[in-house]
């Protein structure tokens, strides 16, 4: 089990690093899916099988696909990959990376400063999750409904297009 965790964790980290360093959006998204899959394995090892499923279904399944749809709508080309290359110069990433690394070091220090605290991984099954979700936290469910409603209304309003976007060079006619 421990080994599974470590392997999955390593895969997740590597896949995520690949996401960050890819120039091609689609490739990056594929790595992202890999990363999500690895994380879902981690969920299993942590005793949250239901969440592992949700991770795959919603993140990898829904959200990534949504993004891919949009990318398709935007009609990206090789040119854009070139742009990505240009944009990802060391001059640009060195500063943020250093800052983030400091942050990481601090986090690592904080996580390891206390004496290691082990736990017994008793799995929390889907039923328990469901019971609490629709028990004490039912208000939360309702609120997330409102959250989704806000998202939908917003996306509906913003996403509306009078004309389909063809290409930025071709399209001249929109209001």
């Amino acid at each position, binding site marked *: 089990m421990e080994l599974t965790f470590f392997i999955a964790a390593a895969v997740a980290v590597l896949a995520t690093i690949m996401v960050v360093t890819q120039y091609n959006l689609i490739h990056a998204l594929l790595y992202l899916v890999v990363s999500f899959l690895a994380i879902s394995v981690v969920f299993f090892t942590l005793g949250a099988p239901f969440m592992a499923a949700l991770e795959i279904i919603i993140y990898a399944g829904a959200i990534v696909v949504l993004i891919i749809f949009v990318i398709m709508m935007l009609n990206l080309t090789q040119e854009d990959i070139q742009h990505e290359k240009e944009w990802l110069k060391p001059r640009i990433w060195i500063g*943020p990376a250093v*800052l*983030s690394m400091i*942050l990481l070091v*601090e986090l690592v*220090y904080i996580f390891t400063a206390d004496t290691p605290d082990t736990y017994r991984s008793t799995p929390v099954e889907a039923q328990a999750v469901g019971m609490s979700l629709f028990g004490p936290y039912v208000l939360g469910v309702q609120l997330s409904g409102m959250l989704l409603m806000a998202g939908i209304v917003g996306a509906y309003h913003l996403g509306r297009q009078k004309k389909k976007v063809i290409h930025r060079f071709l399209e001249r006619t929109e209001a």
Partner: protein
Amino acid sequence: MENLLWVIPALPFMGALLLILLGGRLSGPAVSAIGVGCVGLAAVFTLLLGFQFLTDAPAGGVYRQEVWQWFEVAGFNPSIAFHLDALSLVFIFVITFVGFLIHLYSTAYMAEDEGFTRFFAYMNLFVGSMLVLVLADNLLLLYLGWEGVGLCSYLLIGFWYKEPQNGYAARKAFIITRVGDTAMAIGLFMLFQYFGTLHIQSISTEAVQSWPVGAQPALLIAFLLLGGAVGKSGQLPLQTWLPDAMAGPTPVSALIHAATMVTAGVYLIARMHVLFELAPVAQLTVAVIGAVTLLLAGFSALTQSDLKRVLAYSTISQIGYMFLALGVGAWSAGIFHFMIHAFFKALLFLAAGAIILSLHHEQNMFKMGGLKEKMPAVFWTFLIGAASLAALPLITAGFYSKDQILWLALAGERGNVWLYAAGLMGAFITAIYTFRMVFITFYGESKTHLEHPPGTLIILPLVVLAILSTIGGFIELPHNFGHVVLFSDLLRPVLPNLAVDDSLASAEWMFQVLAAAISLAGVLIAFLVYLKKPELHAQIRNSGAAMALHRFWYSGWGFDKLYGALFVQPFVFLATLNKNDVIDSFYSFLTSLTRALNRGLAQTQNGILRWYMMGVVVGALIILTISLLP
């Protein structure tokens, strides 16, 4: 009658007020009537009151009248109250009477001037202030008069304001006297601190009781009051304004800068004689200042070419004599000389004014000459005045008053030989420059054309003053020579008598002869150098050292330059340097600092999203780091 004391100063004030308020609407004669009439009436009242004072002497020798209480703060309660004793009587007599004559003279002198009304308004205001000064029963009221005359002096010196030079002279006079006044004001603060009042009589009595001779505070106060006195009276070291004050119309010079105002210092010292007697060092200083001043001014007078400036320096010099007298404790002698000086100096100025007017405002003696025939009346009166100034023996009043001072400077208990020598030397120089003036102006060849000969209104005051300058001396004669002591008797209740060194008393006649001889010698030298052998004069002048000396004396011993370098220039320099206020630039700096900060910070708002996120990360880092801190 004594209840009408307030009328004397009130009359000229009323005149001034009338002239100011109605000014534009009055005709020339009406203006003269008001201007001269008020002073004349004041003179009449003075004579009446003086007559009553002399015949029916009041208890304590004082008339006092409180008009109203000025103000009262925590026991400080000066009044608008007048105090008439012998000393002030002498002064108000001179002020109103000589003042009246000069006013009269001015109606003719100023007749053509566009500021005729203004002139009389100022003059009346001056007379009023001066009367307040000498009649005041407390020092604060005295200070009011003191500053009031200063103001009038300023206004009148700058009367012909279109010339910037006159304005400059006027301001110089005001500011320099103000320096002295400041010292005096501090003296008043100290007096108030010690006595809780500024009432002169109370101070005089209490000072004697509470302080021994030589007491520190008395010394300080006496010095401070002396500061005021030297400022007003044009004594060293504040004498520089007086020669320049001649920029005013000549009657002004006669009244203010010769006869009355400049002697206010003498009055003050005489008034506060108690303090000076408690502070012998201060009193000695008075004498020394007097002696030095009379010499310095005398030498300067020797070199002047402007008729009025000669007279101005001679005024300084003569007031030096008065100071000398006061300094050696010859109080009544000083006051006596004041009176006589008022007569003959007014006379001289008025006569000079007559000349100047006739010569179309020409003041340079060297451009005159030969006026003896052209204006005989003026010549003779001028000559009488000059004789009095030069103290020609026996016939002139000046001789008696000056001789008394000289004698007491030597023989008085506080006199010494050095003071006497200085006085004697001064008398010699006086004689020289006086007759230098006479010879250059009236003798020799005529260089000018007489425009309008002086009229009656001009001659009349001259004659009256000439008479006074002659006979005035006979009311006080040395005890080995007639021994008339009317004047000192009059003053005795007010001013202490001076004990005379008996060892010298027998030799008094010798010194009188010496004094007479000295002045005659002076006249002789003047005659030789300026009339008989002008080439001698030129010879002396052209020698190098003499030329330098001449220039030095001519400029009044370089005091103007000195003060300019010491005070005026640094002040002006600082002022112009700091015109825009260095402190302000500190605040401007703060403003630009915030501006710079703004500019710097505005750079961070560059609109780039990644940069904003960096901000968040930095913030998170800082927060985490702080959390990590123990």
